[in-house]
């Protein structure tokens, strides 16, 4: 029950991130006047959600092989993978938030659209981090016959790294939102005076 609840929450968070990402992408394209097709982007996001939710269901239903039997999600590599996906989506959000901010700041000039490239590059880094951490970790766990508790500490250590990255990215998003609000408010005050 607890595992299903945790997976439900994490899937909800992924869905929220994807909704925000879609809106941010639409807003940037609309503001810059670039009529890029949104359908491939939406299809890729839908596919990602399908993969992630299938993995979650597979993990709860014990379809995916695991190192130990466990009652919570922390020692699950599927859980850690979904957390990595959330980190990748956070990177996409900051890339589009930054583009939106720049479109407003550089009035009349359209900065080069690097948001998607940055998003893909960040997502690749996140997946490489996951692979670079868990491939040797799994090898160590098998060769040294680590217990469930020991394996859980390794997984939790990884999650702490990911969580710290969330913190940095979400702080950066807050900073971008604050800067945009401050600029808009100052412009509003200038307009009211003139």
């Amino acid at each position, binding site marked *: 029950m607890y595992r299903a609840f945790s997976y439900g929450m994490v899937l909800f968070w992924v869905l929220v991130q994807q909704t925000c990402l879609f809106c*941010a992408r639409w*807003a940037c394209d*609309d503001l810059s006047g670039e009529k890029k097709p949104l359908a491939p982007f939406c299809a890729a996001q839908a596919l990602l959600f399908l993969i992630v939710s299938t993995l979650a269901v597979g993990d709860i239903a014990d379809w995916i092989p695991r190192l130990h039997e466990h009652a919570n999600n922390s020692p699950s590599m599927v859980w850690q993978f979904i957390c990595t996906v959330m980190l990748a989506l956070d990177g996409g959000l900051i890339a589009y938030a930054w583009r939106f901010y720049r479109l407003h*700041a550089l009035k*009349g000039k359209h900065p080069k659209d690097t948001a998607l490239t940055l998003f893909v590059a960040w997502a690749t880094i996140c997946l490489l981090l996951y692979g670079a951490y868990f491939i040797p970790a799994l090898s160590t766990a098998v060769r040294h016959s680590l217990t469930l508790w020991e394996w859980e500490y390794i997984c939790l250590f990884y999650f702490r790294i990911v969580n710290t990255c969330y913190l940095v990215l979400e702080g950066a998003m807050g900073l971008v*939102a604050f800067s945009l609000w401050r600029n*808009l408010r100052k412009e509003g005050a200038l307009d009211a005076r003139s």
Partner: protein
Amino acid sequence: MLVLDRFFLWVARWEGISGFLGSLEVWTNMLCSATDILFVFWFLRIADIARSEQGRGAIRLRYPVLAVCLLLTPALLFLEGPALMVWTSLILGVPYLLLAGSVFFEIPGIVKLVRRRIQKAPSSGKISAPDEAL
């Protein structure tokens, strides 16, 4: 490989790892929750500017909801295990729900506002935002 082996064995078997990871979990969850709430707050402030320029009413109910979530955040300090996960989910989940709804419904107004501001600016192409440093 030996270095990585030693690193993972250290993580797995160090006596203080449980306390270290536990306290780090509480602090990072609390800070994540607070930064998320602040992000949603600034987003709502931007939406408020857009709404006022469109002659729509100000956002009222969403701010107290955020404030309640922010005030509940320190309660995470006293929780651990599944209870921490459940409360973090609630304290973070509500602002996330607010964020998703607000972004979806407010973004067209924000885009219109920013477009108007861009069009009002001198067409020299010079950077004219008050905050040029960023």
